[in-house]
């Protein structure tokens, strides 16, 4: 079935993934061979990430040509017999993952260097997880999707439990595993239905077959479609932390080492969304093809509203900064899910824009949380009281990130929400407008808890004996990241044009033909 020569040629499309695998193996080797290797490991991980990023950019500009076989036929974007796709949509997300991973390596380094052990494992797992995310972004059949999802999940379970002899870390890991196992079990069950109905695992083939069945009058019964949608969405919902599959999220975020939490909140989440786009675009074709009688957009709408509600209402109560960020990240999943209700090309583009912006501002906010925890020993909102006048720069940057997460101009978060809601309004229909109003209402609610952090920093007096105490020095890696993310937050808030255009082009060149 598969021509060996073609497969060999197509291996060239996997160059970034291959390089990342080499980096991971090298990290393992160095970890075993070199003593006192903390700095070396960090540097190697960072350089490796940058190298992969470089290859990705090369591949981006060479697209649609194969990086190693420029003469290879380019018409086909489905590679390896259709189990994966090679397109700019995938490359876009892979670049995003690598940027997130690079930032994660940077903000992990100062933290793990103080751990007695486990540094090597942290980097190896983090980059392996990134590798899994890259496969998630290009996976095009259900088997590949399931495998890459599990790859990401398993590495995540271990990372959550990396703080040794720490009960909360162990609890986080265990909860993560149990919820993850249940969710992926449900997803697998849903996949078997789809396979049983259509005899195929490739998402577009499944979509085509479903349309054909419906044309023959043998369409999928309503109940069946409902069951399948719910089961499959459980797997995705778990990865992107959408309610009601979010229960693991606050506990894992709180228990896992903070840099790992920060990584979880951006990387795997974005990967989950990337895969969801592919899945929905393939299986549930809209636009071009006839609509398959699946209730998926109602289900996604329900998930989105529920997710926004759980995230935003949950965050109102939180004292612990990491739990607050956990609920906030659930809320943001809800906003992005809104785009999947209408699911036009523009909506997908706006979701991609939002994810990029979200990665930037959320990493920024998390770096502040890490600094607060590591250098100031602050874990709760109340502990931040009066901090604004002790560490004005740090707190001013936190204010910027909080405002961006709320969605206030002139930050990137505002433009992101603007595009997200704007495209939804343009898609029209009572459902979409209602969803926008809901999204806006939840944004108002979210302001309350984000502003609580700002308020604690600036409006309250410091606790006894803390006023005027000089703030500890902030490591260079953190400072670099803070300024970088702050710059990104403002840049995309004031000049969003370039990124906006890129996302639209990606959708047009990548997966648009199928949507």
């Amino acid at each position, binding site marked *: 079935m598969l021509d060996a020569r073609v497969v060999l040629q197509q291996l060239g499309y996997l160059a970034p993934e291959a390089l990342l695998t080499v980096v991971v193996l090298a990290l393992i080797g160095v970890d075993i061979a070199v003593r006192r290797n903390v700095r070396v490991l960090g540097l190697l991980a960072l350089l490796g990430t940058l190298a992969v990023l470089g290859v990705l950019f090369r591949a981006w500009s060479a697209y649609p040509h194969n990086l190693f076989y420029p003469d290879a036929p380019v018409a086909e974007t489905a590679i390896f017999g259709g189990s994966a796709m090679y397109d700019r949509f995938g490359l876009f997300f892979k670049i995003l993952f690598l940027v997130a991973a690079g930032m994660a390596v940077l903000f992990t380094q100062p933290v793990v260097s103080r751990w007695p052990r486990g540094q090597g494992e942290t980097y190896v797992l983090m980059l392996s997880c990134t590798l899994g995310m890259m496969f998630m972004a290009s996976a095009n059949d259900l088997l590949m999707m399931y495998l890459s999802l599990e790859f990401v999940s398993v590495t995540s379970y271990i990372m959550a439990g990396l703080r040794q002899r720490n009960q909360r870390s162990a609890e986080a890991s265990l909860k993560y595993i149990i919820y993850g196992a249940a969710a992926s079990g449900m997803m697998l069950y849903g996949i078997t239905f789809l396979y049983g109905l259509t005899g195929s695992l490739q998402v577009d083939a499944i979509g085509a077959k479903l349309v054909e069945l419906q044309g023959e009058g043998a369409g999928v019964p309503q109940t069946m479609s409902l069951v399948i949608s719910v089961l499959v969405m459980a797997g995705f919902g778990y990865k992107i932390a959408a309610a009601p599959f979010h229960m693991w999220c606050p506990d894992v975020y709180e228990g896992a080492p903070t840099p790992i939490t920060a990584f979880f909140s951006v990387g795997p989440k974005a990967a989950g969304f990337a895969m969801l786009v592919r899945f929905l675009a393939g299986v549930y074709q809209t636009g071009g093809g006839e609509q398959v009688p699946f209730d998926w957009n109602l289900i996604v709408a329900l998930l989105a509203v529920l997710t926004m509600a759980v995230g935003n209402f949950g965050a109102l109560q939180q004292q612990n900064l990491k739990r607050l960020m956990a609920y906030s990240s659930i809320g943001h999943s809800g906003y992005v899910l809104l785009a999947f209700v209408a699911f036009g090309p523009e909506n997908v583009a706006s979701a991609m824009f939002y994810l990029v912006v979200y990665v930037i501002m959320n990493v920024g906010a998390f770096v502040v949380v890490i600094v607060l925890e590591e250098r100031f020993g602050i874990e709760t909102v109340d502990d931040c009281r009066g901090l604004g*006048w002790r560490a004005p720069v740090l707190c001013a940057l936190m*204010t910027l990130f909080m*405002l961006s997460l709320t969605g*206030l*101009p*002139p930050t990137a978060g*505002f*433009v992101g929400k*603007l595009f997200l*809601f*704007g495209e939804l*309004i*343009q898609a029209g229909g009572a459902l979409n407008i209602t969803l*926008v*109003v809901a999204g*806006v*209402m939840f*944004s*108002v609610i979210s*302001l*309350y808890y984000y*502003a609580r952090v700002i*308020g604690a920093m*600036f*409006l*309250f007096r410091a606790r006894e004996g803390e006023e005027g105490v000089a703030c500890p020095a902030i490591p260079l890696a953190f400072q670099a990241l803070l300024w970088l993310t702050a710059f990104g937050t403002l840049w995309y808030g004031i*000049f*969003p*044009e370039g990124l*906006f*255009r890129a996302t*639209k082009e990606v959708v047009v060149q990548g997966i648009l033909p199928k949507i």
Partner: protein
Amino acid sequence: MDNVPWLSLVTWLPAAAAAGLLAVSRKELIKKIALAVSSAVAVGAILLVAGFDAGAGERMQFAESVSWIATDDGALDIRYALGVDGISLAMVFLTALLIPLCVLASWSAVKVRVRAFYAALLSLETGMLGVFMARDLFLFYVFWEAMLIPMILIIGVWGGPRRVYASVKFLVYTMAGSLFMLVGVLYCYFASDGMFDMERLPAGLAGLSLQEQKWLFLAFGIAFAIKVPLFPFHTWLPDAHVEAPTAGSVILAGVLLKMGAYGFLRICIPFFPEGAAAFAPAVVALSVVSILFGALMCMAQSDIKKLIAYSSVSHLGFVMLGLFSFTLAGGQGAVLQMVNHGLSTGALFLLVGILYERAHRRGTDDFGGLAKPMPRYATMFMIVTLSSIGLPGLNGFVGEFLALKGAFETRQGAAVLAALGVVLGAVYMLKLYRDVFWGPVTARRNEALLDASPLEAVSLAPLLVLIVVLGVWPGLILNRTEPAVRAALERVAPPGEYSMSREAPHADR
């Protein structure tokens, strides 16, 4: 000369100075820089007024327009576009005039975190000027939101004992309104086939159904009604005004409240004329309630600052009544009254600030007979009081008269009730004046209160002068605003028979 972006210079100078202040650490120098910059902006605003061509109709002057966020296919076209017409000009002038006075009022009142205070004040000025100058709806929204954080900080950091409560309340009210405005902005954008241009939008939105217009009017109107504030959206106001430091109260009352009315005049009425007409009875009713309720609340206050805060509710009721009479006289009166209220209430808050700084009290019961130890102060307070109650010859009279005249043309019942508010206004203000200034000195400690210093007198002088000047020569404002007000109201059909603007051409709809 034509190519110089005057408006941008005026708008961004304070923000640039605010950023520059971060590098300065000497308190005295910070204050001087803030004063110099805000005075420069005030001078710039005066030059704008001087250079403004009153005969040029409703077109935007000093216009600037640069592409900001745009896509090749034209799907997105957001412009950085500034411009002023008569209405904007009046508001810009008011804003630029009040800020240096706020700096002077804070000179000795703000003692902690001085640098942050002036940085917040100056960045707030940029936001406010931007709102009044923006010609692009998106830009308008950006400036509108950009004001929020500095204002919150001014209330929440340098405010009174309940400052945190007041600032959170202000934040929640404002955000709730403005996010629905965002939905409205987006809807307008798509309904008009991709327009953010505020000058072309009224025509671009002509195809909206009545139902859509009603919803959009609400989406924008609630945000503006909260800012005005129209009863029952006013409950944030007493807290915010009372807890804010003097400068914050002056800005809140003098400028921020005007943004609500400005929004109605600039966006709600011209963009959604039928929606506005549909809601006009409700808005007029709420305006009358605001006028009477505000006045009655004033009578019950024993805190001077709170009394002035509630008087704003009452006065802004007249503004809204004038606007929603949909007559030229009403609209003109509303704009003039916006300026008047900024001058007189701004001055009242400054005066209360002076008193509070000396006595550290501001209950009406704490004072009595202050005219004796503080004659100069009492004189200034008298002038402002008379302006506030609308004595003929001072500015308040003309504005209130025009607003009521406009209301009489189309909504007699409401106007009759509203006129009661004028009487009540005289009652509570004169009662306040009698209690605080006349009679024998009631408390020992007040005998030694220092009279207003020359510096304080000078800082109030511009307001007092304008109160008199606008009283005898309201044309200074009215001549410039007339074309713009006429243009804003021309698309909305006035109810009733006796409309002055009947001759004005109505758009065929």
